[in-house]
Structure formats: structure tokens, C-alpha cells
């Protein structure tokens, strides 16, 4: 239970457990039989990203299924996976040549009909796929010939490849035909056993408990995922993170993630474990009531927003509260995302300059305001403290995410510390376009910025897209519509004998892992 995870007593006990076990080497069952057990706190309901959108299922799906393309975190390129080549025919049509000789785990051959079936199933709103919001730009797929398939888009959507890589694993034609019918008379698509072409086959699945997988011996070695080195892979749900730590230390599991910074520091003392702090695609930022509808016109003034940007010691918060791999950002996007310009001018930490800007905006004695947050209280308190030191005194209000988002949309929030993970989509359209393209979450609705973003969103030429987004990001920074703060990080702990490298998309690639 989560409240236990955050309980200081539990943390202290975990520390005691660690201290007790430091001298004792953990059992290494995984290395001995070339298996790996990884654990997380999510209860998986289906190994199918259409019907369970949790991060753990996206991770599992990367192992059990393949998409048409694969995002390479090292280069940021989209490499053909089940495709052998792809091309934009026009701004609404993508064409894929398919890899030959691929078979599904049930022995059936992979072909263009499977791609068309999967895409058309997901694109049909009546089927109720849970990630429909991510793929509603899809119109349909058409078989061109025995080796080629075309995907038609409802509207120009240059980041389609990112979504095809992440959320659209290809299923065999007719996969859901045998779905059982529930007591409510509807088909239970999530009850269909998972079948993919991926590097691992599911051998046992108990919803909410575990997923057992074995390496797919027929997997193609020349693809970007490569043949898996570890023979058996198991996912276990362990909801209590201190229990996860105890299992890691006793060799019950080989790999865990998401521990607190305190827990990670404590685990670093164990010689038989590797503990890493790695970047994620989530960023933290300040957003303002730019339209002045929350009862004050203070945040309609760019000088006030710039004063906020100069007042927060972002470097300090990033290193001390997030971890060593957190980085301070100046642009309204994550540095690893396509189109996130690296040369955006930021605001240095300068409380005196912040005070001067406040005075210039008509607040020589400082200002008071309500400051909202929902995710990291420590971060919000540190920001509030920095702001107070520069003359901006806040009353911290804590809300649930959905409630706070609705209040921001309704213009009832002066300043809020928000975060955005972009659903791990490595493209600025998942963040900059979303927040500044004129949608319901756009705090500025600046017509000029919206027009530039629309240009980037509809171009298929990468250079043209980059140029448009860089121009929009510069204008957002100059006007200080947001104060981008820092990137989030994630802690990983695993057996020191495991060769594993985390990636910023938070999708652990166990098919690349091996025992030393």
C-alpha cells in the first residue's frame, strides 16, 4: 500500500534491513539459471496495451510484441522493426515494406493482413481500446500487396512514428475473434491470451500477480531489438516498496525501480547491487494564469513571470531533490524529445533581478499569491521558499491532479507547479504542441505561437519541423508563459551481476540485458 511506502517508519525499517544484509551476499538464482525477475507495484490486468495502459504493460508489450518501428534511445531514430523500410507518401499516408519470415508465437506467419487488422481494430472507436486517445489520428490501414501496407491518417501527424513504436504492437489477424463474452454480454478482449512476434513469449499470466515469459527462440536476430540473452523473464507485482527492497536483497527479485532517493542512497551501500539514478521524460514546470481570470492581473505581466523564473534556484532543487541525473531545462519540452531546441535562452538564478522585475511590474513590495501543486510537496515547498526569498510569498495549496488540471483549465489557478511525462513519446508534439497549440490546456493561447506550432505539426520534413518548434519554444521562453524547471529522474536497483542500462523513455529493455 502506498501509504506504507511513504511512511518514515517503513523507510527506517528498510534501512535497518539493508544495514543487516550488507554483509550477506544476495542469492543469485537469476544468474545461475539465466532468468530474471523484475518487480513493480502495478497490478497488470492484461498484457495488451490496447486494454491496460499502465507503464508496466507498455514495458511488457515491448517484450512480447513488436511494432512496425522501434525508437532507438541511443540515436533518437525510428528504426524499422516489423517493417523493413517505411516512407511518407504524403502528409497523411505512411507506407511500410514488411520484414519477411517473421512468425507469431502461435506459429502463424506475419503479413500485411495482421498490420491492417491491428490498426483497424484500434482505430475503430466501437472496440473501446483504452489508448484510443493516443491513436485517434489513425484513419485506417490498407494492404497494398503481399509485402506492403499503408496507414492512412485522419489528419497530418508527423509524430505518428513515435506512437506506432510505443503503443501499437502488431497482433495476428483475428486475434480478438475468440474473446469470451462477459456476463454483461460484451466481449472481454483483455481475456485473450497475448500473442505477438516479440523476443519473449508469455507462458503464464495471472492478472494482478505475475507474468512469466520465455525467450522466443525464433526471434529475428537482425532486428534492432536483437535476440534476447536472458532465457526466462518474470514480472511480479509487489505493491509495497519496502517488500520489493527486501526481495531484491534476498535474491527473490533481480530488478526494481521507483524507490525514493533515501532508499536509493541506502541501497547504494549494498555491494551486490547496482543503484542508478537515470533521467526520465517527465519535466517539472511552473504555469501561470496568463489571462488574469483567477482574480489578479499580476500573471498577465511578463515581468512578473520572468521574476518567478529568476527567483527559483532550479539547479539546487534538481540536484538535491531529484538526483544527480536531473538537469535544469530552459525550453518547454524534454531535451531528448525530437524538436526540443537546445539553444533556448533561459533565466539564471538571480533573486535581486527578480525583485527588480517585480518592482518594474508595479510590485515594489513583492506580492502574495496562492501556489498550487499535486505531485512533489518537497519540490513545491523548495520553490515556495525561493520565491519568498525574492519577495513572492505564497500560500501552498495541495490538490489531486485531475482536480488541479480542471481548475487550471477553468482559469482559477494563479501559479501551479505541474509536471508532464509526455507518455514517453520522444517528440515535442507530445508536450509543446499539446500545451501551446491552442488546446484546453494552453495557458496563453498566443495566436502567433499556435500558428508556428501548427506549421511544425503538419510538416513531414524533419528539418522544417525542428525549425518551427525552435521558433515556438523561443517565443514561449521569451514571454515566460511557462517556467520550465528540471527533468525528473527515476531510481533503479538491480543485481550487480546484471548488465542493464536504463533509458529516458522509462521502458526497461530486458531483451538487451544479460548476466555478466
Amino acid at each position, binding site marked *: 500500500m502506498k501509504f506504507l511506502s511513504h511512511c518514515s517508519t517503513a523507510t527506517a525499517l528498510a534501512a535497518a534491513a539493508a544495514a543487516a544484509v550488507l554483509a550477506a551476499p544476495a542469492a543469485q538464482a537469476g544468474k545461475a539459471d539465466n532468468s530474471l525477475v523484475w518487480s513493480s507495484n502495478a497490478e497488470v490486468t492484461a498484457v495488451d496495451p490496447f486494454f491496460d495502459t499502465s507503464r508496466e504493460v507498455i514495458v511488457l508489450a515491448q517484450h512480447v510484441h513488436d511494432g512496425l518501428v522501434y525508437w532507438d534511445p541511443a540515436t533518437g531514430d525510428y528504426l524499422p522493426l516489423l517493417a523493413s523500410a517505411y516512407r511518407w507518401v504524403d502528409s497523411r499516408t505512411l507506407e511500410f515494406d514488411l520484414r519477411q519470415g517473421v512468425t507469431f508465437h502461435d506459429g502463424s506467419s506475419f503479413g500485411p493482413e495482421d498490420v491492417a487488422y491491428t490498426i483497424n481494430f484500434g482505430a475503430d472507436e466501437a472496440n473501446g481500446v483504452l489508448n484510443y486517445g493516443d491513436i485517434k489520428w489513425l484513419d485506417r490501414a490498407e494492404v497494398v500487396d503481399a509485402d506492403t501496407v499503408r496507414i492512412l491518417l485522419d489528419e497530418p501527424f508527423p509524430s505518428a512514428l513515435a506512437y506506432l513504436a510505443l503503443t501499437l504492437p502488431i497482433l495476428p489477424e483475428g486475434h480478438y475473434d475468440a474473446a469470451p463474452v*462477459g456476463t454483461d454480454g460484451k466481449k472481454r478482449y*483483455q481475456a485473450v491470451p497475448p500473442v505477438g512476434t516479440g523476443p519473449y513469449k508469455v507462458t503464464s499470466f495471472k492478472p494482478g500477480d505475475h507474468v512469466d515469459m520465455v525467450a522466443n527462440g525464433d526471434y529475428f536476430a537482425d532486428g534492432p531489438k536483437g535476440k534476447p540473452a536472458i532465457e526466462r523473464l518474470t514480472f*511480479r507485482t509487489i*505493491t509495497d516498496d519496502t517488500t520489493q527492497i527486501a*526481495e531484491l536483497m534476498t535474491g527473490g527479485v533481480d530488478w526494481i525501480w521507483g524507490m525514493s532517493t533515501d532508499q536509493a542512497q541506502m541501497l547504494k551501500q549494498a555491494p551486490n547491487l547496482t543503484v542508478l539514478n537515470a533521467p526520465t521524460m517527465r519535466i517539472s514546470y511552473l504555469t501561470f494564469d496568463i489571462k488574469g481570470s483567477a482574480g489578479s492581473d499580476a500573471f498577465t505581466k511578463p515581468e512578473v513571470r520572468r521574476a518567478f523564473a529568476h527567483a527559483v534556484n532550479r539547479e539546487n532543487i534538481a540536484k538535491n531533490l531529484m538526483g544527480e541525473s536531473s538537469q535544469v531545462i530552459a525550453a518547454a519540452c524534454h531535451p531528448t524529445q525530437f524538436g526540443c531546441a537546445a539553444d533556448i535562452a533561459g533565466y539564471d538564478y538571480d533573486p535581486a533581478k527578480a525583485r527588480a522585475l517585480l518592482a518594474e511590474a508595479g510590485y515594489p513590495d513583492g506580492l502574495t499569491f496562492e501556489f498550487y501543486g499535486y505531485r512533489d510537496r518537497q519540490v513545491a515547498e523548495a520553490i515556495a521558499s525561493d520565491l519568498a526569498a525574492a519577495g513572492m510569498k505564497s500560500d501552498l495549496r495541495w490538490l489531486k491532479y*485531475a482536480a488541479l488540471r480542471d481548475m487550471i483549465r477553468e482559469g482559477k489557478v494563479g501559479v501551479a507547479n505541474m509536471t508532464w511525462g509526455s507518455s514517453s513519446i520522444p517528440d515535442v508534439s507530445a508536450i509543446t504542441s499539446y500545451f501551446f497549440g491552442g488546446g484546453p490546456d494552453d495557458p496563453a493561447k498566443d495566436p502567433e505561437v499556435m500558428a508556428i506550432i501548427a506549421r511544425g505539426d503538419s510538416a513531414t520534413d524533419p528539418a522544417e519541423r525542428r525549425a518551427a518548434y525552435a521558433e515556438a519554444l523561443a517565443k514561449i521562453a521569451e514571454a515566460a508563459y511557462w517556467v520550465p524547471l528540471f527533468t525528473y529522474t527515476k531510481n533503479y536497483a538491480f543485481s550487480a551481476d546484471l548488465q542493464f542500462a536504463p533509458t529516458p523513455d522509462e521502458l526497461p529493455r530486458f531483451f538487451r540485458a544479460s548476466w555478466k
Partner: protein
Amino acid sequence: MAAFVTKRLALALLVAIFVSSISFSLMFLTGDPAIAIAGEGATEADIEVIRRTFGFDRSFAVQYWDWISGAASGDFGQSFYFNQPVVELLAERMPVTATLAVFSIGFALLLALPLGILAAVKRNSLADRLSLALATVGQATPSFWLALMLIVLFAVNLRWLPVSGADTLAHFILPSIVLGYYASPSMMRLTRGGMIEALRSDYIRTARAKGMLPRTIILKHALRNAVLPVVSVAAVEFGFILGGSVVVESVFSLRGIGYLAWESIGRNDFPTIQAIILVYAMIYVCLTFLADVLNAWIDPRIRVA
């Protein structure tokens, strides 16, 4: 005895009907269930679709009748979260919780009865005080703390027992100790009190005068009377363990009913919550009924009360 059993059965049936209506109403007490399921970001159109899909647009009476008639035939509907029949979920999870409850109550009785008898026989001695201290500590100790301490000692340090999971019976030892220890103090104190009272009574004095062995007097004569309230409390504690194992199931990663109930509340999974409440209420009703019958069988005076 037959009249007594019939009366108790009728009472149990009334309680069952009452609880079923309350558990069904719970879904509507927090407002429109369609809004709760849709979440805060949903539009009115989304909510309307959910209302129609789940049949919330029908009258309360019709919905209740549908649900209770389904429940009577073992159909509790579909879980919103797992999208599988709730009865399947309960069938998957119940063995874990039942095993845990049986082991726990067994451990609690093994601890409570001997210590309660010892405390009564050696009244006001060091043994009595130590038993009392053990009982007090048992009730004051938070179960998650005890669970983590046992994990540290027996799983992490000594490596005698597994940390978490439900693969073997060994996985149930630590959680059963945690739950059983928490349940034992009330039974221990009742055994002690009952034994002290029984040992003072005339028939025990007579037994002693007849030269019976102390062991026979304590175990055969005194304990039979002293154990009466313990039977009732054990039944209630068993029900408590079944329903109150949320924390222990979470810490030891046991996929049981208690944990399912907790998670279902967080997910607004109403069919699952309703089914668990009803099933637990039925278990409580059955346990109380059995305890009453057992008491009446042990002590004939109760049958005419």
C-alpha cells in the same frame, strides 16, 4: 435445539437481506456512480454513455433487484478494473485469504489458550504478568511494523523464510504470525478470565476434593466452561482476519480478498466492492451462527436463553 437453530437462521437471513441492501446502496451514497467511474476529466457525453452502459439510468429498485437476483445465483457482475466476472476474481483470491485466516486463527489459538490457562493457574505470578505484557504488546503493535520486523529477521537476515508471495505454505508463516498475534490478546484475556472464574466454582472444588488430577480438572472441567466466550470471540476474530488482512496482504504481497477490497475502493470498482461486502457479511453471519450453535451445544443453558 431445533427451535433455537431455526430462530438463529431466521435472524441470519434478515441480517443478510439488510446488509445486501446497504452494500448496494453504498454505490449511490457517494453521488452519481457514473461520474465516479468516468473520472474528473470526463465530459457530460462520456458520463451519459457510462450511465447507459452500466444501466445506472434505471430505477434504484430495478437495479437492486437485478443485482440481488444475480448475486443469489452467484453472478456479482463484471469488475470495472479487471473486466472479468467478480465471482472469478473472488474465486482466485479467496484461497489465499482463507489459508491466511485459518493459519492465523490457528496461531492465535495456539498462543492464546496455553498462555491464558497458564496466567489463570499461576495468577498474579511472573508468568501471569508476562502473558499480560505479551497480550498488551500484541494489541499495541502496528501490524505493518511487526510484518517488516519479521521480514528483516527471518527473511533478510536468517533467510529461513520467503519475503513475499503465496507459492508455498512457507510463504504464509510470517503473515499468519502477524495477523494471529494481533488477534490473540482478546482470546488470551478471555481464557484467563474464564479460567479464573471456573477454577473458583463449586464443581471444581468438588473435583479437587474427589482427588482428581490437576491436569484433568483444568483441561476437562474448567477449560470446557472457560472456553465458551473464546469460541464466540474466535469466530469474530476469524471474520476480522478475513476482512482486516489488507495491510498484511500488501506487505507480504499476497493477492487476497482484503487487498482486492482496498484496491477496488481506490479504483471505484463498485461491483467488486459490493460483492466483497456481501460475501464478508455472509461469512460473518455464518460464523456468528456457528458460534451460537456451538455455544448452545457446549452449554445447554444457552438454548433456552
